[in-house]
């Protein structure tokens, strides 16, 4: 007999419990079938509470007081040097400004904190600093402040990460109150481009409050820094004293800061960012997946926009003394390149990418050669080439190509590597496909081939300068730690090209690209694209660097 241990009085009466459970279940089901609700009180000032603002319909023109942006990466510091790459510190380019800006659509160099510039010689650039500009701490922008900022960021003793984009050493000096000279210790045709990357910060902050350089951003931009909470968010507020108010910039977007505040919420997980977008907790969402992109396009209040970036996925088989004999034969390398169906990988695996054009990058890079054909996908021709090589005694059948990627290096990099390996296997070359820990991969990719090594990494790379010299300097110049190509004539040709500028530079780099095409040194799966979700009715010409600058948006606010 089942004892009622409470002597007839149950703790919870069974009929009530069942009834409650039924009601709860029914209620949840009904609610889940589409009855949404605002999550929080519009008056609630808490950091992550954006529902009040998000609840208003930007597409209908309702005023948004605080724009909420869900970003994929957390800032590690507020230093001005972090602003050269958007993922280092998403949104901070609304606080800091460069001397020279780039048109987001045409790429044309435009005045920013410098109103004009001219080359005095191949190592000196003279700039006129914009008058009447103040930093957010009230200190004035003049040539001395600009020079200090330039010297601070490029200083070899500081070794900021921005130096990875530097050519010859950059220094600066003030000539008079508003005239600045920026010098390089060697010809640098890309100096103006490098100054686009460099943010200008307050000299007064660096002198009087140096301990705040890591934690507070003091620039000249349309938004000023309010607070940064590591692990949580970055909050900015509109700069009512911005020099650019009531001026048009680049002829793109609103040109004005439309929102009183912008809050960047750090959300590492793409699923969470997607959920925030769908729930209306974020107006703008950075770097969404293709599936989230589709969902946004199906939503009448949101849209997904994509653009190619300055990042690409390359592959480069070993090709240097010490590598496997088969890889030294251009026919075998050509066969490997012909075996890979990049279009298919872009369409079916990576999705958010542009296929290559027979060269590592797309047509907005300096040095893009429009005369050369894509490598193409031709497995039959690849097999023929291998047969020819075999007939000449090249040990193709002895070749096992190690194809690897570094875990987590790019979206779907593991799947991309498997696809690349599979295509190569299909033409009759044995492959060993692996996804490696960073320590293992980094060690292997920086080691020159010996003892007949046959290795081919599949890995992303990036160049905010969008100049063909950069990837070849890294992957093909014999002295670089990443290179497995050793050709002194090629090195000389490449270095000569880097000393040129304008059309001459472009032509010289195109020759390099054509040589690469012929020798099959460096291949590319494609240029990565990234997707953002923004409100329906807004417009934003995304730059290849995917730099978030709110004045470039058209919001109707």
């Amino acid at each position, binding site marked *: 007999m*089942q004892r009622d*241990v*409470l002597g007839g009085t149950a*703790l919870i009466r*069974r009929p009530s419990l069942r009834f409650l459970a039924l009601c709860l279940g029914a209620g949840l089901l009904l*609610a*889940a079938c*589409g*009855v*949404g*609700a*605002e*999550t*929080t009180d519009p008056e*609630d000032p*808490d*950091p*992550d*509470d954006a*529902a009040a603002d998000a609840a208003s319909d930007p597409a209908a023109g309702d005023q948004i007081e605080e724009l909420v942006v869900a970003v994929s990466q957390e800032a*590690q*510091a507020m230093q001005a*040097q972090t602003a050269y790459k958007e993922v280092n510190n998403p949104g901070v380019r609304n606080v800091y400004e460069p001397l020279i800006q780039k048109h987001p659509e045409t790429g044309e160099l435009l005045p920013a904190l410098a109103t004009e510039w001219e080359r005095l010689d191949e190592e000196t650039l003279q700039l006129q600093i914009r008058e009447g500009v103040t930093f957010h701490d009230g200190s004035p922008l003049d040539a001395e402040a600009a020079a200090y900022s330039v010297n601070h960021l490029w200083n*070899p*003793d*500081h*070794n*900021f*990460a921005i*130096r990875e984009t530097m050519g010859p050493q950059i220094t600066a000096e003030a000539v008079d109150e508003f005239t600045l000279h920026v010098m390089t210790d060697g010809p640098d045709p890309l100096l103006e481009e490098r100054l686009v990357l460099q943010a200008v910060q307050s000299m007064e902050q660096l002198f009087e409050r140096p*301990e705040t*350089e*890591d*934690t507070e951003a003091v620039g000249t931009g349309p938004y000023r820094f309010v607070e940064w909470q590591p*692990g*949580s*968010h970055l909050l900015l507020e509109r700069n009512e004293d911005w020099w650019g108010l009531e001026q048009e910039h680049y002829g793109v977007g609103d040109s004005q800061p439309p929102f009183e505040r912008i809050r960047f*919420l*750090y*959300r*590492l*997980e793409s*699923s*969470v960012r997607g*959920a*925030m977008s*769908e*729930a*209306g*907790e974020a107006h703008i969402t950075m770097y969404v997946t293709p599936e989230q992109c589709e969902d946004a396009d199906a939503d009448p209040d949101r849209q997904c926009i994509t653009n190619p970036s300055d990042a690409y996925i390359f592959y480069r088989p070993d090709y240097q003394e010490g590598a496997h004999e088969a890889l030294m034969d251009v026919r075998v390398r050509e066969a490997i390149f012909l075996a890979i169906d990049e279009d298919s990988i872009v369409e079916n695996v990576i999705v958010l990418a542009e296929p290559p054009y027979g060269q590592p990058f797309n047509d907005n890079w300096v040095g893009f050669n429009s005369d050369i054909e894509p490598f193409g996908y031709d497995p039959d021709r690849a097999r023929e080439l291998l047969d020819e090589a075999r007939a000449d005694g090249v040990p193709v059948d002895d070749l096992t190509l190690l194809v690897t990627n570094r875990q*987590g290096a790019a979206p779907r990099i593991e799947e991309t590597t498997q696809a690349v390996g599979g295509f190569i296997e299909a033409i009759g070359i044995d492959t060993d496909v692996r996804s490696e*820990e*960073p*320590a293992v*991969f*980094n*060690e292997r*990719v*920086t080691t020159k081939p010996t003892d007949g090594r046959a290795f081919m990494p599949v890995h992303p790379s990036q160049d905010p300068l969008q100049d063909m010299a950069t990837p070849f300097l890294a992957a093909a110049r014999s002295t670089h730690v*990443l290179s497995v190509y050793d050709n002194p004539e090629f090195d000389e040709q490449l270095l000569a090209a880097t000393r040129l500028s304008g059309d001459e530079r472009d032509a010289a780099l195109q020759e390099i690209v054509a040589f690469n095409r012929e020798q099959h040194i460096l291949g590319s799966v494609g240029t990565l694209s990234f997707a953002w979700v923004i409100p329906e009715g807004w417009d934003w010409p995304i730059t290849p660097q995917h730099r978030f600058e709110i004045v470039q948006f058209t919001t109707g606010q």
Partner: protein
Amino acid sequence: MLVYVAKRTLQSLVILVIMISAVFFAGRMIGDPALMILGPEASQEDRESLRRALGLEQPIPVQYGRFIQGAATGDFGDTFRYGRRTSRMHGPDASGFFEETGANPALPLVLERLPATFLLAAVALGFAFAIALLLGIIAAMRPRSQMDRSINVLSLGGVSIVDFWLGFMLIFFFSVRLGWLPTSGAGTWQHVLLPAATLAVRPIGRLTQLVRSSMLDELAKPYVEAARAKGVSERAIVYVHALKNSAIPIVTMMGDETANILTGVIIVEVVFAWPGIGQLLIQALLMRDLPLIEATIFVLIVMVIAVNWLVDLSYTYLDPKVRLAN
């Protein structure tokens, strides 16, 4: 009792030293830290320079001695990525690496995030304890009933569930579809509910089963029959006598679950963007920030060991045999 406490404390310290030694050696076994930190593009010169700055060119016993000494004083070095230290990793003069002002020591960064993790863990434990106790008692009082079977199925489901999947499902259901709770972040009491619920589900499953079986054992004992015969109320029998006598295994498992929750927060904090040490650890791993990784794991180890130590101490209150034996 003092002897018991002293013995447990000494054992805990020994375990702590073994664990953090494992952290030290693991960090050096997975590859060249300088290469991991700088990435493959760094020159050989830069790597050598960073090795010198980090003391990595010293013999392993010397490095180990310095590491243990540092750990004893809470000094794991400066984080490479947070703050100014972002910069000084390249170039021939990285030897001045740790002498510059504005250094950002790793351990205080970790300790800053601790309150958020404690809050999340405490709420999750609170959920787990309250719900498991309720369900376990209900199941024990109606053995082999439909209610008992339902609770058993639910608890098995809780034990089997994958926490990050559950987290995403809760976000989808309660935030996106229903709009009742925020998807992520921190700041209000609503923000803590979903991550705490995610963390609590597995402990609820395990604790419920343990509470049920412990209570069933106690309720079957002769003293319970005797108490009923004497007219003691069922509430008193269940909540005062039987529950207290079944407390030891429950407390032991609570300690175990506390430790699991403290380590389980790592994934949950990332899913919900909760600004605790779990999220910090993942950031440190992604950024290959060795001092920060070591400091964070050290704090986690200390917390787990401390919880187990407290559980051991609680036996002296709960079990008179332990008190009398010592």
